[in-house]
């Protein structure tokens, strides 16, 4: 319940995974599977369902979930080879979050080593990511933000912000308060008629 309003959590649960129904489903044939001819969805049909629905129904033994494409064997081998270079964002933005949730599904094939696999992937990618985040140029950041998953990107930006803040602190002398709202209006006033230029600024008090 703690994550009820968490948008990332919500969007992670929206990712679909292939499932096979153990039971018939009354009157939802066409809605669940557009290629289904009958009114009822027959048992044994395979349908792509979002995680939130698949999770709920698999706990009630109504369907059998399968691993989504991005966790299939081929990709896993790829990741074991060179984890750092693989574009995970393209496969699933919520790679770890969804993977973690998938671990809780009891009836999933190949879920035994899933948690270990996720952890390995993360550790091998994290090290390189962290070093890069402190010293990277804008271009590297661009390319990087296109291959990282949402969770990694969050860490990446935070690491970058903290090293920037540290630099600012170490070279700073005084704090300048700046407006959080940038006004375009100001520019116009400088150019316009209204502005009277004074040779010496008036300093009151």
């Amino acid at each position, binding site marked *: 319940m703690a994550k*009820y*309003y*968490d*948008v*990332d959590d*919500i*969007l992670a649960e*929206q990712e679909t995974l292939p499932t096979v*129904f153990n*039971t*018939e*489903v*009354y*009157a*939802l044939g066409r*809605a*669940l599977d557009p290629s289904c001819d009958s009114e*009822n969805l027959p048992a044994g049909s395979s349908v792509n*369902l*979002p995680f*939130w*629905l698949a999770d*709920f*129904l698999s706990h*009630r033994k*109504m369907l059998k979930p399968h691993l989504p494409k991005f966790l299939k064997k081929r990709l896993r081998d790829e990741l074991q080879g060179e984890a750092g270079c693989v574009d995970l964002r393209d496969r699933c933005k919520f790679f770890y979050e969804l993977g973690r949730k998938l671990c809780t599904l009891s009836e999933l094939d190949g879920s035994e080593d899933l948690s270990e696999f996720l952890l390995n992937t993360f550790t091998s990618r994290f090290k390189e990511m962290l070093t890069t985040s402190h010293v990277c140029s804008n271009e590297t950041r661009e390319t990087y933000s296109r291959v990282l998953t949402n969770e990694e990107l*969050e860490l990446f*930006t*935070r690491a970058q*912000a903290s090293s*920037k*803040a540290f630099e600012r602190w170490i070279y700073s002398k*005084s*704090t*300048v*308060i*700046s*407006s*959080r*709202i*940038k*006004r*375009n*209006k*100001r520019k116009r*006033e400088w150019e316009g008629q*209204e*502005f*009277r*230029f*004074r040779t010496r*600024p*008036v*300093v*009151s*008090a």
Partner: protein
Amino acid sequence: MATDFARTATNLVKELKTHLEANDLGGSGSASGGSGGAVGSGGGVRGGVLRDPGQALPAYKEDEVSKSAREVQEHYDSVVAILGAFREENREWDTRPEVASSVLIHHQSLLRNKRLLLAYQNLRLERIKAFRWKCGRLPRATQDKLSPPERDFVKSYERILNSYQKQCRVDLTVGFFPPGENLLKVRVTEDLGVMEFDYIGEADLQVGTVHLLPHEEAERLIIEGKLEHLA
């Protein structure tokens, strides 16, 4: 009958989140006021200033919200219809798993829609609150993007905040920058006329003029973009 798995509401939330991230309020120094919820997760770290205050919040998507609400109603009607038909048959649930699964799918879709709509609203309210704390009152351009209940919320929030601040006699929304000196050197960027200040009395704030103003009062005006702080 549509079972598109709450797609309308999902897109609603997704779009809002993208918009809010693209128009980050910035400034890591201040507390977000309310329960640091969904807004805090994306904001704060990226820094930078809001380019256009009118973009702080996208317009309220009345149509999509009511479409999702209708979807909820449809799911509810289906559940009731299925249960009604089933009750007439008078049999055990175990013998009809296909009916049970259908009811559950409808019910879950209903709950999912509810969660998405609540998250959408919550995300907007968090942003409204954060804006009040970080950038002052909502500008007119943003006011027009609120739904009527949201406008009421803004009004009540403002009232509560004001009455509390009156009680403790401190403007809580300023003071995130620890004062180095008592007076700040500022340049006026928006004509404010003659204003009264502590310590120094009246000051004629015309565009382009430079003044030394007391920290506390100047800070609010600087954050609102009416003065510019000169280091």
